[in-house]
């Protein structure tokens, strides 16, 4: 899987170019027909081994990640910024970033602990109080290489620690890697894979993609929060690393069609693949947009559990990702074999 490459490249919502180009290159290598739309969604048409099997299945994974955008350049040459998507503000300080298409390096600084007045350290530093330093002498010097509107991504090394994988943007490059893996395998039935844009700013790419594809059924491959820490009660963990991919029953954007959920569970049970339920009702995914497309599309969600989602560095267990691919593959075979409804 291409997780390491996918995690390392920038692709903030609205600027998914590098991710899209990378995936398109892989599709071309696999000989898979593909095209894009006006928003930048990337569609891959996977042919089945048998032409009579055409379940009109859409499988989606979003390419975009949360990040920042330069809002202004100060006289001193420091950059102020906005958040793009639900970035974890508490983990921004003391992190390196890359700015714009040239990937200009910068750091998010903060007042040294020695200079803080009593009580200052009690308050969280929000985006309004933070800035990026690229080492420019002043505004003019900075504006030679950056400008307001430039997208900013975290600069985090992707690494494997045994079965644990650390990197940025695992939400949802893990999903992109899984979908690419599925595209490389052989199935009786075809499906349309969509690498969507702008999920993190409101499921916007998936909305128009689903309209275009007009699927009968859809599966969203995602990455979801895990809070499996010692002090957290089990029912608050949301998901647990290493216990298999998480199936969504409902979240803020969708209630998964019961028959579809049952089919996913059946696949996992029959093929003895570990899985868990996502035990948290918050947040949304592309399933929200796809399920309400046209006259409605039954849509399922399967996710890789991930610690420190939307932060500069996240952790997943690679076994969960592998098992996700197995369940999704089993689901495709099951739909080809006996249809869905």
């Amino acid at each position, binding site marked *: 899987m291409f997780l390491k490459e996918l995690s390392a490249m920038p692709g903030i919502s609205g600027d998914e170019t590098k991710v899209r180009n990378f995936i398109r290159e892989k599709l071309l290598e696999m000989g898979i027909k593909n095209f894009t739309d006006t928003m930048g969604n990337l569609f891959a048409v996977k042919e089945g081994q048998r032409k009579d099997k055409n379940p009109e299945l859409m499988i989606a994974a979003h390419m975009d990640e949360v990040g920042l955008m330069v809002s202004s350049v100060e006289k001193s040459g*420091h950059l102020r910024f906005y958040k793009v998507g639900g970035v974890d503000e508490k983990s921004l300080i003391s992190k*390196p970033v890359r700015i714009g298409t040239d990937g200009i390096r910068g750091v998010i600084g903060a007042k*040294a602990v020695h200079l803080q007045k009593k009580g200052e350290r009690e*308050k*969280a530093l929000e985006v309004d109080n933070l800035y990026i*330093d690229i080492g420019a002498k002043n505004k003019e010097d900075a504006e030679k290489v950056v400008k307001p509107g430039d997208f900013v991504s975290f600069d985090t090394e992707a690494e494997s620690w045994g079965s644990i994988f650390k990197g940025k943007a695992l939400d949802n490059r893990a999903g992109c890697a899984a979908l690419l893996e599925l595209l490389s395998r052989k199935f009786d039935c075809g499906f349309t894979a969509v690498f969507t844009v702008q999920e993190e700013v409101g499921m916007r790419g998936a909305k128009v993609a689903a309209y275009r594809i007009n699927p009968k059924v859809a599966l969203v491959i995602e990455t979801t*929060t895990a809070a499996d820490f010692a002090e957290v009660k089990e029912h608050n963990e949301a998901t647990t690393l290493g216990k298999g991919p998480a199936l969504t029953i409902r979240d803020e954007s969708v209630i998964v069609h019961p028959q579809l959920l049952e089919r996913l569970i059946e696949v996992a049970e029959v093929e003895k693949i570990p899985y868990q339920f996502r035990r948290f009702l918050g947040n949304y995914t592309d399933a929200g947009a796809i399920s309400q497309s046209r006259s409605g599309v039954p849509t399922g969600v399967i996710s890789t559990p991930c610690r420190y989602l939307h932060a500069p560095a996240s952790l997943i267990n690679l076994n969960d990702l592998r098992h996700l691919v197995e369940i999704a593959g089993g689901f495709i075979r099951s739909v080809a074999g006996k249809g869905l409804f």
Partner: protein
Amino acid sequence: MDLHNFLQEITQKDGVSGYEDTIGDYLAGAFAPLVDEVRKDNLGNRFFYKKGSGEDALRVMLCAHMDEIGLITTRIDEKGFLSFSSLGGFDPRTLPGQDVTLRGRELTYGLIGFKPAHLWKEDEKGKAVKMEDLFIDTGLSPEILRERVPVGTVAAIKRNFLSLQGECRAGKALDDRAGLAVLWECARELTRLRHNAEIFLVATVQEEVGTRGAVVSTFGIAPDLGIAVDVCHGTFPGAAEHEVSSLGEGPVIAYGPNIHPQIAGKLQETAREYHLPCQKDFSTGPTGTDARSIQVSLEGVPAGLLSIPLRYMHTSVELVDLEDIKSGGRLLAYFIAGLNRSFVEGLSCF
């Protein structure tokens, strides 16, 4: 090797206070070709000694601390997360999402974790994270952790050395590896200069926990004068002007009760004579550097302090300008070359 490469090398070596062997061994190798003798004392301070040409046997000490702030594990919980406390002063808000290197029985990498947003209570949202909310996540089970990284394992901050615009560089432990780079530049410059004084360049230990390395190394050397090379706060948005110095405008000469006025004066004069940029900074009491201990060692050792402006001190993205380090090294070399017995004798004439 140039300054960029040297600084990159020394910021990639760990040296948490009390555990400075890795960085110390590297420095010993790097300074050896530039000096006459390399020595290590009982606490781990490294002395790089260079003979002088004169007969009046002046002894000059220049020091920069090689320790950095770090963490030490205090507990392995039932799910395999490591609690920790700090060695040196951290702002806990800088730690979530930080990579660390654990030097246990086996080298192990970790990430500083914290609970996700959906678990923050309403009244916790605007509040800062506290040290006790944080933990190190290695993804390993408690059983494996007890084998590999037992409680009491030291963790160092992990961060690549980053090249920013122009001569700016960012990374971890530039407090005070920037100072060590000044000593290295100075030693290189001195190979080309004739100097009367014997020189002891010292990489000190345990500055961050109370300038302890400086205490014993000053005693060990008994110098005629000593200069600490450390970092001071560089400008940043919202900073009070009197608290900060500008990056790229030269090293900063300290003044105040901790500093012998004639040493500060001679540094200033040397800078003027050789057209080297420099800035001034004023401290009202003992400085937070090795100079505070040098001054009150033995029967009293005249102390000076030269600082490199640095932004975001005690974070993993400390930021300096290479030009300041180069100017600092040159300034100290010319200062030393200009020393003689009568200047040193004058230091006790008040």
